């Protein structure tokens, strides 16, 4: 059996583990366009911040590929010949496969902007190489402009703050983290970030650039030395789409992590799968999902049986002591009931639909949040216990002794 | 100094015994000699012998051997006996004057036949009656001491080394089918003749080497049944226990061994159900008769003897056979004096009795 994996991120290495948990013999080839062993992508900002050392960012020990008998090939997949089961690389190389797993991740989205070509120091922020490059490009007098107040942009801001003189973040959206937070929650985060020295220009973005000046939509100007473009990502799925695979915004997979094409699996940031809290497929580009999805794909590729049937979106993100956690579906769209618990410096919002917790936002007080996540994941009937008590204090009390006996006295 | 019986008197000792399974009668000469090599096991403060089958002419009468301190008490005792027995014969026990044995009391023997009328009114059999008489004299009649009371047997004892005691009583001139002997090493004694061994009641006699740690438990138990342990010696309590179990409770010598040197519970548990029940029964009802601590004893009785070690075998005891003769002694050397050649010689295990009964009809 020949296994080929496109991409070399957490999903890919988990896929290797999954394959090897079933099949110790088959050959595994990993194709990657990054010349690094798989590393934890979220660490790139921590690298900048100095919390992560370069040696510590890798997903697996140094001898992992060797130990798992994996051949690594540097290159980018450009096409799949599904009839002959061959992956074509940009360098012209062809790699035959019996089972293929696409873990190709995503790429930064860079819209056409006038004057970008006039900038000396402009970066995206998705790979460790981006981090290395930024590290070189900034000094303590640098003024950094980050376009995009999403997760990537803000983490980049956090990573850079202590290295530079000024960090400004702008976004067309009127609030930070607009994809995961509502106005009120975003305001709390923004206030905190401002108190930590980040400057914002929201509901506003650069219209065009000229040298070291960004001309903003509202007519203002921002002087900067380094530009970071953090406007979002697009899944790397072109070659799969070309091969006739079913895609929406990303590759559609089922709970086996199978794509529409026989023998081809996918996992990680480049897939859309069912969100149990939402009922529809969506991209849930999150590390836990990449790990679980990759492993599941690997097992199934090798003939084993595994399901990843409880995926849900979630985020845990923190900036200088303020933690934000979200999970599930929490748009207060009227279908769900929102229950709020506010503390002095915290907001907890829970979204309940048909007696199920479908999502939550926690800001500030994130203690034992996994208990909530577990409720979302297990789709438990919350009318069966004192959910109000749980909202105030996440613990195992409301679940009753039988549940505790099972979980605290057994193997889980 | 306190007299024997007023304090607890532990002692070390030498024992020996010889018996003819055929019931042939022989003199005590050999057994007296056998005590010589074991001289150091005694200290001259007591020695004695018991012979069975020695009074064939008077075999139907209780042979009482008594020590008297003086003639007055002798007279009192004789009065007392006369009221209860026909005194068939009353005589001084013949002795040989030898320098090693001195300060002897009055040593007398009586052959007695209990008066039927007295037995009837007491509603007792002659043995029980006689046992009570012995108990009475020994506890109530100060200055008199019955040291032998069985039929066709007799105990002979004195203060001195056993080989001298044998010569003193001229035992070489008696003939019996079974002899036991004892040399005593008391650790604290005024040297009272009655304190020597063998100790007996009726035809049960005991020679014993050791010191039973269970003494007071055994004594206080046996005293519930009319026995009075006046001497505070192990031998005395053993003799009473032998009388109690063998005569009054009808146990066999083997069963008696199972009481006084009962097998360990761990041993009992390995037995079959019936045996387990039997041994458990003994250990339950006669638990107070279990003897612990070191002992080797020979219990003599009419028609046989039983030699027994404590269940841990904390004292030496050797047995041997030659033709119809069985020999027991604290040390093998004593046996070799009696019979240089043996057919079989062994060291009985703790708690395993050596029981020798003479041929029927002897």
């Amino acid at each position, binding site marked *: 059996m020949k296994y080929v994996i496109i991409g070399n991120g957490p999903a890919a290495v988990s896929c290797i583990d999954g394959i090897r948990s079933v099949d110790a013999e088959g050959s595994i080839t990993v194709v990657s366009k990054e010349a690094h062993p798989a590393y934890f992508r979220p660490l790139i900002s921590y690298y900048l911040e100095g919390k992560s050392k370069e040696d510590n960012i890798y997903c697996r020990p140094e001898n992992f590929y060797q130990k798992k008998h994996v051949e690594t090939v540097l290159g980018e997949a450009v096409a799949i010949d599904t009839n002959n089961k061959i992956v074509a690389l940009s360098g012209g190389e062809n790699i035959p496969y019996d089972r293929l797993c696409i873990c190709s991740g995503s790429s930064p989205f860079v819209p056409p902007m006038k004057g970008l070509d006039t900038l000396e120091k402009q970066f995206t922020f998705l790979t460790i190489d981006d981090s290395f490059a930024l590290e070189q490009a900034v000094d303590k007098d640098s003024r950094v402009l980050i376009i995009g107040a999403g997760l990537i942009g803000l983490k980049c801001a956090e990573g850079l703050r202590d290295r530079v003189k000024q960090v400004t973040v702008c976004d067309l959206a009127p609030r930070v983290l607009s994809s995961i937070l509502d106005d009120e929650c975003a305001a709390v985060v923004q206030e905190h970030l401002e108190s930590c020295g980040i400057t914002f220009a929201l509901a506003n973005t650069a219209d065009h650039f000229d040298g070291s000046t960004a001309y903003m939509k509202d007519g203002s100007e921002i002087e900067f030395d380094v530009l970071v473009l953090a406007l979002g990502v697009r899944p790397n799925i072109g070659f799969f789409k070309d091969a006739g695979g079913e895609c929406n915004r990303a590759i559609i997979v089922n709970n086996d992590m199978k794509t529409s094409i026989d023998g081809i699996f996918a996992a990680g940031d480049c897939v859309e799968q069912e969100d149990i809290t939402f009922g529809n497929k969506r991209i849930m580009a999150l590390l836990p999902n990449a790990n679980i999805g990759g492993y599941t794909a690997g097992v199934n590729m090798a003939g084993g049986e595994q399901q990843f049937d409880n995926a849900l979106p979630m985020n845990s993100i923190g900036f200088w002591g303020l933690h934000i956690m979200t999970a599930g579906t929490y748009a207060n769209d009227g279908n769900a009931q929102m229950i709020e618990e506010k503390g002095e410096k915290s907001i907890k919002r829970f979204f309940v639909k048909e007696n199920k917790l479908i999502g939550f936002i926690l800001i500030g007080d994130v203690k034992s949040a996994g208990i909530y996540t577990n409720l979302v994941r297990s789709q438990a009937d919350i009318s069966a216990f004192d959910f109000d008590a749980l909202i105030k204090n996440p613990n195992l009390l409301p679940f009753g002794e039988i549940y505790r006996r099972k979980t605290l006295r057994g193997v889980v | 100094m306190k007299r024997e019986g007023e304090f607890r008197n532990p*002692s070390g000792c030498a024992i020996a015994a010889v018996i003819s399974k055929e019931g042939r009668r022989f003199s005590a000469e050999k057994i007296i000699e056998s005590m010589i090599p074991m001289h150091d096991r005694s200290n001259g403060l007591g020695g004695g012998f018991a012979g069975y089958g020695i009074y064939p002419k008077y075999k139907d009468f209780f042979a009482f051997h008594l020590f008297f301190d003086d003639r007055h008490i002798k007279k009192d005792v004789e009065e007392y006996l006369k009221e209860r027995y026909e005194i068939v014969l009353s005589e001084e026990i013949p002795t040989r004057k030898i320098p090693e044995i001195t300060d002897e009391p009055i040593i007398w023997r009586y052959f007695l036949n209990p008066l039927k009328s007295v037995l009837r009114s007491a509603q007792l059999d002659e043995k029980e009656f006689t046992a009570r008489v012995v108990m009475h004299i020994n506890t109530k009649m100060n200055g008199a001491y019955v040291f032998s009371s069985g039929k066709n047997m007799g105990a002979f004892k004195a203060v001195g080394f056993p080989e001298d005691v044998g010569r003193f009583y001229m035992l070489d001139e008696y003939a019996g089918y079974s002899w036991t002997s004892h040399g005593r090493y008391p650790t604290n004694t005024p040297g009272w003749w009655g304190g020597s061994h063998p100790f007996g009641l009726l035809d049960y006699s005991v020679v014993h080497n050791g010191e039973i740690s*269970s003494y*007071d438990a*055994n004594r206080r138990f046996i*005293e519930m049944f009319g026995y009075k342990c006046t001497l505070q010696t192990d031998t005395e309590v053993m003799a009473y226990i032998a009388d109690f179990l063998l005569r009054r*409770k009808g146990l066999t010598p083997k069963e008696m061994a199972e009481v006084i040197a009962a097998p360990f519970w761990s041993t009992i548990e390995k037995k079959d159900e019936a045996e387990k029940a039997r041994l458990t029964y003994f*250990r339950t009802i006669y*638990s107070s008769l279990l003897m*612990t601590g*070191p002992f080797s004893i020979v219990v003599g009785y009419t028609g046989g003897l039983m030699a027994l070690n404590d269940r841990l075998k904390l004292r030496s005891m050797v047995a041997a056979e030659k033709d119809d003769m069985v020999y027991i002694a604290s040390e093998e050397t004593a046996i070799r004096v009696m019979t240089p050649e043996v057919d079989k010689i062994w060291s009985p295990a703790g708690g395993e009795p050596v029981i020798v009964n003479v041929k029927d009809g002897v």
Partner: protein
Amino acid sequence: MIMPINYILPEFEVERSDYRCIRCRVCERQCANGVHRYDADGDIMLSDEFQCVDCQRCVCLCPTHALKIRKNENELRENANWKQNTILEIYKQANTGGVLLSSMGNPEPFPVYWDKILINASQVTNPSIDPLREPMETRVFLGKKPHDIERDVNGNINTELPPQVELQIPVMFSAMSYGSISYNAHQSLATAAEALGICYNTGEGGLHEDFYQYGKNTIVQVASGRFGVYKDYLEAGAAIEIKMGQGAKPGIGGHLPGTKVGADVSKTRMIPEGSDAISPAPHHDIYSIEDLRQLVFSLKEATDYKKPVIVKVAAVHNIAAIASGIARSGADIIAIDGFRGGTGAAPTRIRDNVGIPIELALAAVDKRLRDEGIRQNVSLVVGGSVRSASDVIKAIALGADACYIATSALLALGCHLCRTCQSGKCNWGIATQDPELVKRLNPETGKERLVNLLTAWKHEIKEMMGLMGINSIEALRGNRLMLRGVGLNEKELEILGISHAGE
């Protein structure tokens, strides 16, 4: 009515090392009496010493050993006649008008005869026995022993015995009722008894349905209140004990307040929930020895003569004659409880002034029964402050077949003898029915500690037997030569039936 001045200061002082205290508040959480309290304003632990009973729970649980409970050293003017405690008791009674209540055993300084008796050892004339090398037997059978042996025509012995209680060591846990002590305490005792091959005693509160499984290690008690007594109960145990009296409070009954009669206790005792469980002072069907005989045989009848019957009495002045009567009543075992025996609650005056020491009672009873030749009719079990393996050895040598221990067992379970059982707020989970407190005694631990205690005693008993040259406990029973008295007068020695040391 509120008394204008309280003459009574707290009996104890809580000494807290502020340097050591880390404000973990374990003391606060663990004190059912509410002594400790954390004050957040001052970040300080406060103590309400009036509530402290010196149970030592907080002391034992304080992880930094910051706590000591000390006697309040405040002193009234010294007076040899009017001792401080005597005066305080008067104050208490003047405050309340009530009978003074206390619990556990008599704490007054009466002579402890165990401590004036010494044990013999083998030297030279008799070897001591090494229990590590040789078997050392501690098994006993309690019950009537037949006088005569019966044989069938073939000479085989009829080995059937009257019912016996077999014990692997001559120690049993004495009666403590479910109600006076907790479910977990009972479970600890029951499971330990099973593991040790001995018996525990239900006390007068019936037998909880969960514990019928330990029947062969259980002695079921029938007391004057007859709580929980019915056929199954009588048949459940290894023996039936008729409780005539108790050492801590001879001649009076008992009273379990309704507050302790929860659902489980109510069911076990077969009385309504919340009702006071009152045991009358006498059994109302026993006004004399012949009545006792009737009850003994009623119980035997009810159980098909398969259970030995124990009659338990308090050691009182005429105990020898009483025991003789009981030995002729058909009872198989007599249990005698000395005046130092414990209790869940007793009037202080009675606890401290009634009864006689068990050592003297035992010696007198054993002697009397032997003098009368009826010692084999009954086994003797003694209790009332048997505190150690050497007390056991001495009791056996004086003539007991076995000992009853209760206070020692409770100590093993964690009791600190604060003598406040009557409050029902036992911080150690023993003398309480409050579920929050009961759970403090994990019966697994309880069992283990009891098994450990008696295993240790067993080792010591064997060691002492070995040094006396005795390798089976029955050879020690009544073996008074193994004992000598020290500092005892002629009369005491005579009663104990032992010689003075040096004799």
